[in-house]
């Protein structure tokens, strides 16, 4: 690259970048500091003389304890984890196979089907949640994890399919042709040769799908009603706000703890996640 003097680098690159990072991360800092701040400090008006926003000298675990003792937070975590994991597995299973068929096989209407899946990729959850709630009810799945495990794939499968199509297209056709000549059926060639080669793609799709499931809100909000069945985002929203009263300490503690699993998964697979993200927008 073409670079200039040091002061230019600071003015045009480093300082703006530091500002970006600061603003993008500050809410998380705020989440953390609130989690460990005692209520007395928390509800001190911002114009009070001893308001000390960015630090606390009396850290406390009260909010976290409240979360575990007074709410079903651990249930919400388990629910979210199970629902996200199972719907991710289902979506990968469907998406990998569908992506393979659309990218590698010649069959009538392949183009039309590809377009159809792309279009469903763009259907937002908020378009269909009301009729879907009725359908869930009529299938007697309301207020069960199944209501989410079966509906999350509707937005995960198109994404996985789309991403996997891109990966499969990049794998040379000769690999499976060679496998077929070596004595593998089409299906075996896919299982033994193409899928192992596509593992990075499958990982990306899986991690992305997992974070998307963890993030989903409106279906969980509408389909689940009893506190024991809720996912973290819905549980935090509905159980830690009573009317107009916000339990900010536990709320932030819940937000922090609820973010940790995604953050951990993400930190281990940053590269896969990024390639999933950039793969998803490749036309």
């Amino acid at each position, binding site marked *: 690259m073409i670079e200039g003097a040091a002061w230019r680098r600071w003015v045009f690159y480093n300082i703006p970048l530091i500002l970006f990072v600061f603003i993008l991360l500050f809410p998380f800092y705020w989440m953390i500091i609130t989690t460990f701040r005692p209520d007395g400090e928390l509800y001190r008006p911002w114009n009070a003389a001893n308001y000390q926003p960015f630090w606390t000298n009396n850290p406390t675990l009260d909010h976290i304890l409240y979360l575990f003792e007074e709410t079903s937070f651990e249930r919400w975590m388990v629910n979210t984890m199970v629902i996200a994991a199972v719907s991710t597995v289902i979506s990968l299973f469907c998406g990998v196979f569908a992506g393979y068929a659309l990218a590698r096989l010649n069959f009538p209407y392949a183009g039309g089907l590809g377009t159809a899946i792309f279009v469903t990729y763009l259907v937002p959850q908020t378009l269909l949640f009301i009729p879907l709630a009725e359908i869930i009810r009529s299938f007697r799945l309301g207020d069960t994890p199944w209501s989410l495990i079966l509906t999350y794939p509707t937005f995960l499968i198109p994404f996985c399919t789309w991403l996997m199509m891109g990966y499969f297209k990049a794998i040379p056709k000769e690999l499976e*042709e060679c496998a*077929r000549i070596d004595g593998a*059926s089409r299906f075996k060639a896919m299982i033994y040769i193409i899928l192992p*080669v596509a593992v990075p793609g499958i990982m990306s799709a899986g991690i992305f799908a997992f974070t998307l499931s963890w993030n989903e809100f409106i279906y969980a909000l509408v389909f689940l009603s009893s506190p024991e069945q809720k996912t973290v985002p819905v549980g935090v929203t509905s159980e830690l706000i009573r009317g107009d009263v916000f339990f900010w300490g536990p709320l932030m503690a819940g937000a922090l703890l609820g973010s940790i699993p995604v953050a951990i998964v993400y930190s281990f697979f940053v590269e896969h996640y990024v390639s999933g993200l950039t793969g998803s927008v490749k036309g």
Partner: protein
Amino acid sequence: MALVSIRNVNKVYDGNVHAVKNVDLEIRDKEFMVFVGPSGCGKTTTLRMVAGLESITSGDILIGDTVVNQLPPMDRDIAMVFQNYALYPHMSVFHNMAFGLKMRKFDKAEIDKRVRDAAAILGIEDLLARKPRQLSGGQRQRVALGRAIVRHPQVFLFDEPLSNLDAKLRVQMRVELKKLHERLGTTAIYVTHDQVEAMTLGDRVVVMKDGVVQQVGEPLELYNTPANRFVAGFIGSPAMNFAEVTLSASGGKVWAEAPGLKIGLPEPVARRVGSRNGTKATVGVRPEDLHVAGPADPAELCFDVEVEVIEQLGSEIVLDTRAASNAFVASVEPTLRVRMHDRLRLAINPNRLHLFDAATEAAI
């Protein structure tokens, strides 16, 4: 081992692109048959139909005496080496070679023995634990070959296997392939666009163009008696010289005339021409069949040219020359002293003159 019969086979894509037209061939048991032609000539499509990777639009393909038209590739008992080798990137060399045997449910001991035997033949015993990405181009090539030979298939199929190698390695692998075929004796079909490979490797060579077989024969047969102008131009390097001529009979001789050129056709050729007086034709003569005219050369086989480019190859000199509108490449003795823009008199070896019909391009 087996013979392969290709009977009147056609391939039409999407109902309009006719890629292979009425190909009718017999590849004998243990034969090394080379398909050669420019890209898009249908040679690879033919090979892929034998492999079962493309469906056959009409006609029959037999391996041994089984019609394999409907047989999926896995049941054809063939092995194929691809241009990009198609090594399975997630498997070690050993497992790459063992894959075909595993799919056919061989027992472990037999797989191990066969892989080691094949590795020994190819000199890749040390590489068995490596992954394909840790191998050089030549080593990958050997693994691809190894994967084919462990299977002891009825037929080997090669799809331009050497074209991803550098020039030096290509020559070396060519020799090794020849030796390997000698040793294994398996029927082989080899597709290439490189006529040198075709000439050096093939027991017989099939020349194809636009989906049509132009000529089938042993390498020297193609070289010495090409069936048509295309084969004549495709086989041999530097390529044969051509000149569009008009035929005329006078003084008991048949003359071929073009601007800057008047050649009396030698007796056998003249006889074949018969009474085509006044018709158009194409004269063909290979660069090595031209030499600088001496006193012994009859005048009717000589013509004057101007030297345009001199290529010193050491063993010979290749001259790019011009006689009016016709360009001639001549390969002459390395001892000749010649400079650019010199005028020379070239003579044709009368026994090696080819004549082609102007319309059909078939040899006369």
